[in-house]
């Protein structure tokens, strides 16, 4: 039989005025296992805590029940009290007789009756409590950042500046990401490259940052503080040690393909750096388009390379590394326009996407920063901008708002007025959304000062008509039908999650929403954490966002990483799930409902007569388990139990309440 001590707190008059302490004490004395009952004016005071410690010693108590305020208030305080007296801190149970009794009931008789019941329930639970222990886990003091766009760059720099080593993995030959493709940035119109490239150089030069380009994450194992990540270094066919970045190779390379960086508006070579300011400024061979790799002949780059850096024999390398924390910053894709035949994209060269327009405006772009019609190289006189292409469209595109298009379209209209004097911008919109510092003013500028005409109506169809384009819509505000003849149509393409986001989410045991954006742990209060401890999010991989938000989130993620890596060690949560392998059928129903990937299958060996049989059972990774208990209900044979909230305890509580 357990030796349970019950301590009732008056909380001044907060409890004692409504609950008859004497009567409650008398009732508690009769409860099974209760050997000592006492009371105190303020149990949380030092005097009150001392009384408990002394009673534990004097009466050899092995379980403690305190009737007081909510456990959400003082559970930790009293756990420490109990621990100081030499008991396991989880031998404590609190009966909430203040918030859930004295404060909400007026009648002393029934309130006392309820308080007794609450004490009895806590006693029943305490009698079945088991000692619980946290385990201490070491931390690998290095971080991995996946994705080398502005989010990944910012996170890597912040973590590295705090003194921790960072590996920055980028799948392209250079870091820079989407921001490197942009011309100006809203709402200040500062040049994207001017603010980004210094950061890229910082990354390359930072002693704590190890840049791993042309590489991808292959596998992630382990848990917070102790991740083991396998990285695939794709064969670059260029020896990074030897290459000086002189550029002779791509000047001579005979095979030309559409440049991804230029959105197909210009060509690049098969051996290439994506753009002139690339970091590292060392090329890679795109083997699918390389003459040597496709036909076995050529080797021009090898012949011209003064450093002897070309290596056709390179193979993909799998490298295993350890990290304490991971930041995911993989960015976004632009929406495919296959479902939008009505806009004649791909049918007429002067219908372009917003990112293509961005390249046209860019001084280092295919036209040297001149806005020219792809069809004839002439500057356009009239340009239609169509908003929400693939956004806010549950029938054919994304039902969500892509968040950035209103602002970048205002920017495009402003840039058009600056670069092509006399040109007219017509912006077709459903709603204009400009929440953000200085954003509304920026939008105002587009139509007030830069002459953009905003038309409230979604464009229904673009008809190519000779070398012009006819844009048909309606201005819903005036009710006037609109039919404009323009020289260029710019489609504000929506923002999609990366095509491989779901795959990466699986590797990281994090979840995505219906549109494959990674889920944060809490939409308001834990915006950069994921529900997998130690994995953090930055930038558009979590949802469409602009550069300021992206950078803010990246720095926030970096702080989370730094505060994690700064810890001496991690203490595991002791109230975790536990598998009774005798009862486990190995059907892994528990695994299906675990939000943390904390359950894995393992095989145990059992002797059956002469034979050894292997049997599948579930195993809980206590470092990952957060103790929700969803698994315990999914498990039909009740083989998985939750420490601190066991089946035995809860059934005993039910029985005690209904006594």
């Amino acid at each position: 039989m357990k030796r349970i001590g019950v301590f009732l707190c008056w909380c001044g008059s907060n409890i004692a005025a409504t609950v008859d302490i004497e009567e409650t004490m008398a009732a508690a004395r009769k409860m099974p296992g209760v050997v000592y009952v006492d009371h105190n004016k303020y149990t949380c005071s030092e005097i009150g805590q001392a009384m408990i410690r002394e009673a534990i010693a004097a009466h050899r108590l092995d379980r403690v029940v305190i009737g007081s305020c909510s456990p959400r208030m003082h559970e930790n305080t009293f756990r420490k009290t109990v621990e100081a007296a030499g008991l396991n801190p989880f031998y404590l149970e609190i009966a909430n007789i203040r918030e859930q009794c004295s404060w909400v009931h007026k009648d002393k008789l029934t309130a006392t009756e309820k308080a007794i019941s609450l004490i009895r329930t806590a006693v029943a639970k305490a009698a079945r409590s088991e000692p619980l222990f946290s385990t201490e886990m070491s931390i690998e003091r290095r971080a991995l950042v996946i994705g080398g766009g502005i989010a990944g760059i910012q996170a890597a720099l912040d973590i590295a500046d705090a003194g921790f080593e960072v590996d920055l993995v980028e799948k392209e030959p250079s870091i820079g990401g989407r921001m490197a493709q942009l011309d100006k940035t809203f709402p200040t119109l500062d040049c994207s490259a001017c603010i980004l490239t210094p950061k890229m150089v910082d990354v390359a030069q930072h002693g704590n940052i190890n840049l791993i380009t042309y590489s991808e994450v292959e596998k992630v194992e382990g848990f917070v503080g102790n991740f083991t990540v396998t990285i695939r270094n794709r064969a670059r066919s260029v020896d990074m040690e030897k290459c000086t970045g002189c550029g002779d190779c791509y000047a001579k390379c005979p095979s030309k393909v559409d440049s991804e960086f230029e959105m197909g508006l210009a060509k690049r070579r098969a051996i290439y750096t994506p753009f002139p300011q690339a970091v590292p400024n060392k090329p890679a061979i795109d083997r699918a388009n390389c003459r040597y790799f496709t036909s076995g002949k050529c080797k021009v780059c090898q012949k011209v390379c003064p450093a002897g850096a070309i290596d056709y024999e390179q193979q993909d390398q799998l490298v295993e590394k350890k990290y304490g924390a991971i930041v995911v910053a993989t960015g976004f894709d632009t929406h495919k326009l296959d479902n939008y035949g009505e806009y004649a994209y791909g049918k007429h060269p002067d219908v372009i996407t917003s990112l293509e327009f961005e390249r046209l405006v860019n001084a280092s772009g295919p036209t040297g920063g001149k806005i020219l019609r792809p069809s004839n190289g002439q500057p356009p006189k009239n340009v239609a901008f169509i908003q929400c292409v693939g956004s806010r469209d549950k029938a054919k595109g994304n039902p969500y708002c892509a968040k950035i298009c209103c602002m970048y379209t205002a920017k495009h209209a402003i840039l058009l007025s600056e670069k092509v004097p006399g040109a007219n911008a017509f912006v077709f919109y459903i709603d204009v959304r400009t929440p953000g510092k200085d954003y509304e003013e920026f939008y105002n500028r587009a139509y007030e000062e830069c002459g953009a005409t905003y038309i409230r109506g979604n464009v229904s169809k673009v008809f190519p008509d000779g070398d012009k384009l006819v844009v048909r819509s309606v201005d819903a505000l005036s009710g006037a039908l609109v039919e404009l003849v323009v020289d260029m149509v710019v489609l504000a393409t929506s923002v999609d999650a990366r095509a491989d986001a779901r795959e990466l989410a699986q590797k990281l045991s994090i979840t995505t929403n219906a549109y494959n954006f990674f889920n944060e742990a809490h939409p308001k209060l834990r915006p950069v954490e994921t529900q997998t401890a130690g994995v953090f999010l930055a930038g558009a991989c979590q949802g469409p966002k602009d550069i300021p938000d992206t950078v803010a989130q990246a720095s926030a993620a970096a702080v989370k990483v730094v505060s994690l890596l700064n810890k001496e060690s991690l203490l595991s949560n002791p109230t975790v799930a536990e598998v009774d392998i005798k009862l486990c059928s190995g059907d892994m129903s528990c695994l299906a409902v675990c939000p943390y990937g904390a359950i894995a299958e393992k095989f145990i060996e059992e002797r059956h007569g002469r034979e050894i049989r292997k049997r599948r059972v579930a195993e809980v990774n206590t470092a990952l388990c957060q103790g929700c208990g969803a698994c315990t209900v999914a498990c039909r044979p009740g083989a998985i139990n939750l420490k601190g909230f066991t089946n035995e305890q809860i059934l005993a509580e039910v029985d005690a309440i209904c006594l």
Partner: protein
Amino acid sequence: MMGQSEKLQKIAAEALEQGQVTMVLGWCKKDFWWQAPVAFITDPASAARLVWDPFTVYNPVKYLLDNHHCHEKIGVFVKGCDSRAVNRLLQDRRLEREKVVLFGVPCDGKTDAAKIKAAFPGRKISAVSRVDEKLLVDTDSGTETLPAAGYLLDKCQTCRHPNPVVYDVLAWEKVEPRPGVDDARFVRVAAVEQKELEERYAYWLRQFDRCLRCFACRNVCAACNCRTCIFDQAEPRWIGKASDLADTLNYQIIRAFHVAGRCFECGECERVCPADIPLQELNRKLIKDINEYFGEYEAGLDPNDKPPLGTYRGEDPAGFDES
């Protein structure tokens, strides 16, 4: 032309001879004309014991749980319902697909011996055989012919998957589901739903008052495949041992809940119940609700899908006040 039993015998004998499997589970004939118990055949010569007759209703699949350790590979004859039991065990990871060879047997419905007996009161029956849609009943006063459709087991009258949904070999051509099975599926559930609340409680009390807690419903069920059933545990004791009606209700509610989204409607629980408790009315109620709330789902068709209670959608509706 080879008879259906002979076809099964040939399949089993060949599989054993070629060493493809070391044991075959099928059906054989023993003491009574109305029974065709599961046979465990380990040598080709005994394959001749196998039969396919109006009473091969038993599901051999659950026996795999006890036997798959001892054999490299086991061959199993599976009707539509049995094949879904295979998927049940596969999804529950209680069986590995590579360890079994499935001999699919399209099934045109099994016969209810009790109905046959009732049709010939006072007459002694020695054998019943089936030819297409006719039953030939040998009685002490000559052979009688009955329409097979009128003497089906209740569970076969609502069978939507008479053909195996997973198999390696098919014994013969597939059959068409009986007309109207879709409409019949929830007829009994709807009838109970129609009753008034108190009437419903009284109805179920009447049913479960007969329950002996013999656990036959659980033991026959391929979805009840836990190594140790929660109701067999001593600590914690989830239900009382004595035969209290409240404990019986507890057992039956939790049993039904444990097969929610997993029951593949073979109807064996109801068929084997010695007290004739209409357990399908409970199981199918849960299926009906899951379909209505969370989208159509049929268990035992694809071992790789997610059972409805093991997954969710953010926009799921709730069967309670969400305000």
